């Protein structure tokens, strides 16, 4: 009997992922000034990967970014504001874990906004629940264009980046450099497939050809079989439509098998944490596209250094986006005088975003945050002068080129 009980607890824990879901809260400040705040408190939930392969690029850093935004907002308002509470949980990159947690947060804990949502499958799982419960989601971590495409909702913002921007930045740059035949190594889930599809369109539109692709299980460890296939395709460029340790392992193994530098690699989604992990020797010369780079101007440096003081790593675009979007959300709640989702969302969409993260950013009806992107190239080891000095900014991609045009979007909210 006992045996069976232990077994069921164990299996239950492993399946539902309730093993690690730390949550902490910001001490609530006395309510003042917020007339129509439900339950007297604005509650923000950061639902992210706290333990898996995306936990460096989002994870605890995203929770910290949200915490910083709340503190800065309260400091700017000199404490005369509504109470704000922060909770966080680990969704383990699983859609079902994410949707269970989101329901619990919305129904039992009265969370008003869920942020971060790294991994497309978790974002797509949580968005419809937020719509049903009339709460807000702000996706900073996930990438698929579906989020503001077919699956768009009127209570969601896609804040940082998407596969369209990545494809148009990196894809176009590589084709223009002469890399006109491609083979894709694709993570076999919504994000990887979207990235492959969007990049294929860009490659073809710019006169290139796609010779083939191979889809690998997510997450993977050994990529040598797939790399050999890519090698025998003879393509000039191997496009890595994956992320995190999948990308770093693939890059490392491509060097081991002598595939690079004969064929070149294009990391279609790489974060500064990946470059930091691999080192400049392996990654030098690679192009990548990001929505934020810490060392771009004085404003980005100032904020990033504050973040670095606390986290001991420079922020990724996701973490910077969590800060910026949480701040924008809190300002919108204040301006609207309520935390009711529709009213707050109206304010968020009506107010342009001007901070270290975005200049004249605006949120479109489909939820897409329209802002500039950066085409970056990884520096040579000898060009890097100080820690985390990793990129040349080769081009600022204007928002109009980086974001999918309304005419191409499948989001019903745009077809009015």
């Amino acid at each position: 009997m006992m045996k069976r009980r232990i077994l069921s607890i164990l299996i239950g824990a492993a399946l539902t992922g309730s093993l690690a879901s730390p949550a902490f809260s910001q001490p609530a400040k006395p309510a003042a000034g917020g007339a129509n705040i439900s339950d007297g408190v604005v509650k923000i939930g950061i639902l992210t990967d706290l333990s898996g392969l995306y936990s460096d690029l989002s994870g605890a850093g995203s929770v910290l970014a949200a915490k910083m935004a709340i503190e800065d907002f309260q400091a700017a308002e000199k404490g005369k504001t509504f109470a704000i509470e922060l909770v966080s949980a680990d969704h383990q990159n699983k859609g079902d874990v994410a949707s269970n947690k989101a329901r619990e947060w919305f129904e039992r804990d009265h969370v008003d906004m869920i942020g971060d949502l790294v991994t497309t499958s978790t974002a797509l799982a949580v968005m419809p629940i937020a719509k049903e419960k009339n709460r807000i989601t702000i996706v900073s971590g996930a990438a698929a264009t579906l989020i503001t495409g077919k699956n768009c909702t009127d209570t969601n913002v896609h804040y940082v980046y998407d596969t369209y921007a990545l494809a148009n930045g990196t894809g176009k740059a590589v084709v223009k450099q002469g890399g006109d035949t491609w083979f894709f190594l694709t993570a076999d889930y919504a994000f990887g497939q979207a990235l492959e599809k969007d990049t294929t369109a860009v490659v073809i539109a710019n006169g290139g050809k796609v010779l083939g692709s191979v889809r690998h299980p997510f997450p993977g460890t050994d990529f040598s079989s797939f790399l050999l296939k890519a090698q025998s395709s003879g393509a000039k460029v191997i496009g890595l439509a994956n992320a995190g340790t999948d990308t770093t392992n693939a890059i490392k193994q491509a060097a081991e098998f002598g595939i690079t530098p004969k064929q070149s690699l294009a990391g279609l989604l790489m974060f500064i944490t990946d470059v930091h992990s691999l080192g400049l020797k392996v990654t030098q010369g690679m192009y990548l596209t990001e929505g934020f780079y810490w060392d771009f101007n004085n404003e980005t440096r100032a904020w990033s250094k504050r973040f670095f003081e606390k986290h001991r790593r420079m922020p990724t675009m996701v973490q910077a986006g969590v800060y910026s979007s949480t701040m924008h959300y809190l300002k919108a709640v204040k301006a609207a005088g309520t935390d009711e989702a529709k009213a707050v969302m109206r304010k968020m969409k009506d107010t342009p975003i001007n901070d270290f993260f975005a200049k004249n950013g605006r949120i479109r009806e489909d939820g897409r945050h329209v802002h500039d992107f950066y085409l970056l190239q990884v520096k040579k080891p000898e060009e890097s002068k100080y820690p985390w000095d990793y990129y040349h900014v080769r081009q600022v991609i204007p928002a109009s080129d980086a974001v999918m045009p309304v005419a191409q979007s499948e989001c019903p909210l745009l077809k009015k």
Partner: protein
Amino acid sequence: MFELLGITPQALYGQLLIGLINGSFYAVLSLGLAVIFGLLNIINFAHGAQYMMGAFIAWLGLTQVGPWIGDPEFHLNYWAALVIAPLLVGAFGMIIERTMLARLYRLDHLYGLLLTFGIALIIEGLFRYAYGVSGQQYELPEVFQGAFDLGFMHLPKYRAWVICASLTVCFATWYVIERTKLGSYLRAGTENPRLTQAFGVNVPLMITLTYGFGVALAAFAGVLAAPIFTVSPLMGADLIIVVFAVVVIGGMGSILGSIITGLGLGLIQGLTKVFYPEASAVVIFVIMVIVLLVRPAGLFGREK
């Protein structure tokens, strides 16, 4: 025939060889599990974490130990790591066995499983806290830079070494347990501990050493893996489930079974990556289901 399959023989040989390389990792890891289960009846869920510790010790030795002791020029090279990491992790395993696992032998398997699972989570959590998940890069030792040109593929020297080293270790382990006097004591100790003890054999000590050895095998595989995979706290968690499937297919506790199954499944997985890559993660579990339906004790296991 090759034309029918849409692949050239060269490409196929290359893929089979890669399958064999991955299979040799499976073999070393599942061998450690099989030794521990066969002789201690413990399902060692911490095996993946111990494999990760091996890789991390290699990386720490190469890049961090020097600065720690105030001599930045000091490195623990690859060969030293190959010996020291298994010893350290093995010793760590023996402490766990003496202080915790030893209390569970009279209870059901599940308690051992729960305990080792908990230990794995703690170890992985600590490493994640200290080093993050993006992973560390272990530089390939200079001797292994470059590759052999086999005509049909470009075989990195290091991968060739991985096959040789793991097969040697696997065979030696099998030989010691199945063919030597020490091995016969071990097997007798598990068959009937009381009777063996009555003959003057120190069974508890033997069990501790066996657990230490099984764990050391995991760490050895970890050092082998360090130069080719990103050294990350999650590297073991990603692999451990597959390795458990290998042990189950081979027959729980069967030494030879785990070696042959490990290599065989590496090959099958390699082929799946050629013909239907999307299924390459799941194919092992499909085989596991089929084997359990046909031979519940595993391919090489004996029904008790």
